[in-house]
């Protein structure tokens, strides 16, 4: 089940795996970056290949790997708020070693999170700061990680006009759309945990190529909850679903969102919250989707080691759900940590629309029968029209066997089998023709009868004659 891979040094505070899971970078409280490598692709044994001092005075709190198209490099976020990029290169005759490419100083604000994304324009880096600012940098030269250009700077607010005053943010979480490749524009989701409500909620930002700016296209929060502090966000890989799946963790649980692919008229993407998982009692530290985007793994601080009472929908019984808990029982003071894995299927809609439709269809028959009863009783309807109304039943009757036939023979609903559907609908057309013909006949009949008895305005003719 589980296999220990490597022991980490004392004081290790963060770790990060590269794209293929062959290299592990860890950062420690004394500012050392340690890189472990597995030499053989068939074995998972790791050995330490490099140790470099990233910062003399501050510890590393976060490490992020640069996408492999840009070399073997990591970004280290230090406690003093600096961000430094380190790259493994062999220059000229020198042996392979980790070298500092560049470092960013954020001034007074603390750097909270940084993530890399690949887009058509090249490598982009999003950084989020403790004063609520978000900066997007762009790499100028695809072979050199030294030269970055600040592409945009904004705040995580949906309304770009009003600016929020100085904020105090505790943490931030960024997740790029994993689909973004060099062939398409990419987008990312970002959420803060701060004292400023407007900044908090997770928002999806997309780069608007036409106007060269970043736009918020969706806010992943229910109307009442959009000031909740966001602990973590995770964008799932999409292997062919007609929507994107994003997980957002707040103190109310982990909510799973479906995000439409096509924007509506005002540039927003359609949103649907499909479920809330209550995985952890306390703060959620990290969330990650697996490579198919079907399973979400989370870590967080659990108040008590209770099993997760996540209720499941009908469809997901094909998956098993597991939870790995790393727990201790010694003393009350120790925190309890847990990794929760939710193999929820992120698709399932909450209500089966298909079944509701057929039920509604069946139920609609009764009012119609009532209508037929009363129209027959009133004896006011023309014969042919009445027949037409009754003929609708023939249409209804025909659709039932046709529907069954379509389901059995073609495995789809009637509406998708043209010749059957057309045939059935032809009956409906007949119905309409009957009704219209009946009414037309009745109108003519009534007109003829009236013409025989009286002219519409009897006095009018005489009056005009006299005036002339």
């Amino acid at each position: 089940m589980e296999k220990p891979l490597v022991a980490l040094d004392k004081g290790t505070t963060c770790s990060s795996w590269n794209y293929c899971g062959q290299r592990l970078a860890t950062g420690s409280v004394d500012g050392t970056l340690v890189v472990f490598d597995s030499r053989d692709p068939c074995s998972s044994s790791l050995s330490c290949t490099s140790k470099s001092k990233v910062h003399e005075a501050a510890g590393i709190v976060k490490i992020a790997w640069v996408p492999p198209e840009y070399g073997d490099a990591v970004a280290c976020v230090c406690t003093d708020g600096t961000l430094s990029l380190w790259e493994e290169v062999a220059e000229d005759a020198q042996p392979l070693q980790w070298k500092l490419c560049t470092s960013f100083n954020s001034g007074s604000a603390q750097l909270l999170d940084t993530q890399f994304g690949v887009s058509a324009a090249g490598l982009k880096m999003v950084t989020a700061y403790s004063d609520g600012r978000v900066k997007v940098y762009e790499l100028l030269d695809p072979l050199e990680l030294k030269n970055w250009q600040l592409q945009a700077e904004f705040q995580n607010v949906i309304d770009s006009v009003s600016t929020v005053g100085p904020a105090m943010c505790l943490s931030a979480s960024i997740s790029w759309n994993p689909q973004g490749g060099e062939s398409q524009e990419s987008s990312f989701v970002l959420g803060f945990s701060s004292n400023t409500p407007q900044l908090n909620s997770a928002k999806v930002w997309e780069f608007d190529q036409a106007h060269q700016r970043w736009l918020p296209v969706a806010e992943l929060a229910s109307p009442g909850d959009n000031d909740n502090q966001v602990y973590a966000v995770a964008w799932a890989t999409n292997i062919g679903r007609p929507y994107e799946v994003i997980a957002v963790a707040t103190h109310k649980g982990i909510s799973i969102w479906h995000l439409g692919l096509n924007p509506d008229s005002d540039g927003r993407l359609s949103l649907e919250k499909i479920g809330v998982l209550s995985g952890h009692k306390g703060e959620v530290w990290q969330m990650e989707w697996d490579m198919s985007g079907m399973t979400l793994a989370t870590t967080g601080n659990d108040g008590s080691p209770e099993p997760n009472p996540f209720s499941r929908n009908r469809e997901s019984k094909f998956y098993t759900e597991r939870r790995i808990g790393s727990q201790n029982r010694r003393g009350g003071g120790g925190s309890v940590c847990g990794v929760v894995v939710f193999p929820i299927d992120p698709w399932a809609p909450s209500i089966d629309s298909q079944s509701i439709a057929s039920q509604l269809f069946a139920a609609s028959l009764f009012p119609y029968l009532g209508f037929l009863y009363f129209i027959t009783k009133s004896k006011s309807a023309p014969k042919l029209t009445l027949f037409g109304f009754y003929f609708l039943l023939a249409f209804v009757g025909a659709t039932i066997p046709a529907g069954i036939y379509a389901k059995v023979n073609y495995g789809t609903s009637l509406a998708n089998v043209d010749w059957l559907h057309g045939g059935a609908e032809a009956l409906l057309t007949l119905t309409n023709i009957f009704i219209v013909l009946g009414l037309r006949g009745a109108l003519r009949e009534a007109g003829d009868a009236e013409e025989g008895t009286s002219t519409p305005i009897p006095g009018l003719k005489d009056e005009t004659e006299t005036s002339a």
Partner: protein
Amino acid sequence: MPGVAYDSGDMAGALGSNDTAMVPHSPEIRQPVVYSLHHGLNPPIARLSISWSRGNTLRVSVLRPPSGEDSEKDEVGGKVVEVRLSNGDGENGDAKWRRIAYGSVPPFAYYRAGGARLRAYRRSQWVRRCTTLIEKYIRWEYVMEYSKDINSLLGSSKSLPIAVIEDPKMVLRKVEEPTALKAAWELMEIFYADKQSQPWLPERLVDWLADLDSLLSSTQPTVHSKLVDFQNELVELQVIEDNPKYWEVLSSALAVGWLEIVVKMLRLHGSYQLHQLGNRETENGLVETVSVLISKMPRMRPEVEDGKLGECFKAKPDFIKAWEKWRAQITKLDCSAFWRHCDHRQTREGLKNMIQIMLGNTDNLCNVTCHWIELFVSHFLYVRPFTVGLESMHDLAQKCMLLKPMSSSHGLIAILLGILGENTEVVLAECSRAFGPWMVAHAIELLTTGSDEAELLLQEERDSLGGISIAESHRLVYAQVLSSHPLTWQIAPIYLTSCTKQGMALLEILLYKLPIQHNETLLKNIEICRLYELDTVSSNIMKIAGVYHWKHGRKGAGVFWLQQARDEVRLSRIAQQLFDSVGKSISDESFKQWEGLIELLGSESKATGGLEFLHKYRDFKKSLKQVYDGKTADAAWQAVESLISLMKNPSTPQRFWLPLLHDSLKLLNWPDRPLLDVSQTTLLLNKLQELSMAKLRPDFIEADLPPQALISVRLALAANLGRATLEE
């Protein structure tokens, strides 16, 4: 994986900080299973960090708080643990599992290909309904072949070689230990794949149980376990027929239809011994009659294997006739007067009991069987020999279960119940629970052939599953399991490509996540991309490889892979870099080290102006070198031509003009005759003039040359012009 509890292990045991809590998985309460993580670290744990690897492997970094009060000096700061979230198959080892995974690929691929052929055939001939039957038949053939292949892969049930002199007291033949996986597969085969033998379904169940009854012994006593116990006692028994256990085992084995064992055991009866034959004649006669009757039992099946007893009937009317005749014989024997002459009480009672079993007395059957399945099977043999169809089977199973409640559920039993209840979803869920994704992914093929409803259920594309069918989703899950192991990821593409909707995208992600540092993996990866026409992925992979090699000092390999990837952006950047570095040291011999790279870059990226210059420059340098080496005038001519074309070319940067001219001073001052004609010289002079003008501009870059270079060049040019004019 029910019932698998972990030992706390040595590292955890010593520290005592890891509990081994394990919540058993039950299908009713949909609660997650809690596995404990054996990291072996002292509390407190400050943080966990997770990362998905390929497939469903999760890497967890367990980090301790960075030294608050460092009491223990040698304590590590954390640990990285790899957790595989699904293998589901506790029975088979890792290597064996891989063998199965690899072995099941050819049958699967072959079957899928057959299915595709069939579908194409159906589309082309869909009007002609009469082909449906033929088509169904072909399909069954395919699926049966597939099922047989997989079945043989899971292990053979052949008996071990039999000793030449057979031990008469050896009632149970030794066979290879059957596996539950194989048993489950056989069950699926019996019910879903093997349509030809549907009429003798009950007999197939009897055989199935005979082969695999030992598996059920793990959870509760069975006839098999009874037999094994008795076998151990048998050696010490002197008068076998006095032992009540002998008769008990006999009737049990008879009830489940193990006729050859029963007959063999009956022949061990004391009355067969020569010295007793005289005074126990009646008794012996009765025993022999019963054993003959048993061996003549009519059975509704095409044939019996060697060594098995019974008379076979293929057609039902014949079978019914024979069965009634056989029954009549038994009834006759039951009422026979000989019983009164039989003095041995145990023999009499035992044989009578066996006759009751053969007559289908349900109470007796219930008494002698242990597991409900055994009771179930015995019903087919003696009570309802003419059973067909699943419906009655399900009712019967329910009844049997009431009579013989199970203490604990075995995965196989749950699958059987699902099959009998004709509930495809339950069958799938139980398969997945007991045997993991491999079983589900492969058994789905059998299920879809089994019935049209199942096919509809499994192949229907569901919006709730993101537009894929249940079958596809299970294949995806299995492919993910495959891709999590470095030795099995190669076969994942076969399953992924059979998933029409989402398989390819997952395959792309899988290929992207493979390490490119190792050449074999890289080549295999590219080969797979080529096979499935994933051009963007392969160029992306080659790009990653190119950047990797370039950055790690293997510039040639880097350029090669970037060229393969047709990454113009990076290649032109590399060309730029080369250009710059050459520019820095144009007169230097270090140019040599770049020469190979320029050669490499050459043919492909013509678009880059800088590189064109470098090519010409290389030619120029080459011929110039020959000139300096004292080669003939030919070389000099060539050098001059290169020089002129370089100077004419607009892509040659201005800052190189002077160094170029300075380098070619020897050509300008060629002793024999002027190498440049008037127009050429004029061109060079013009360029020189332009250069002197450009010197005044602020952005001019001074070449790294001796200060009198310009003057000497000008002088040489002037001299050359003069000589050339004279010559003309």
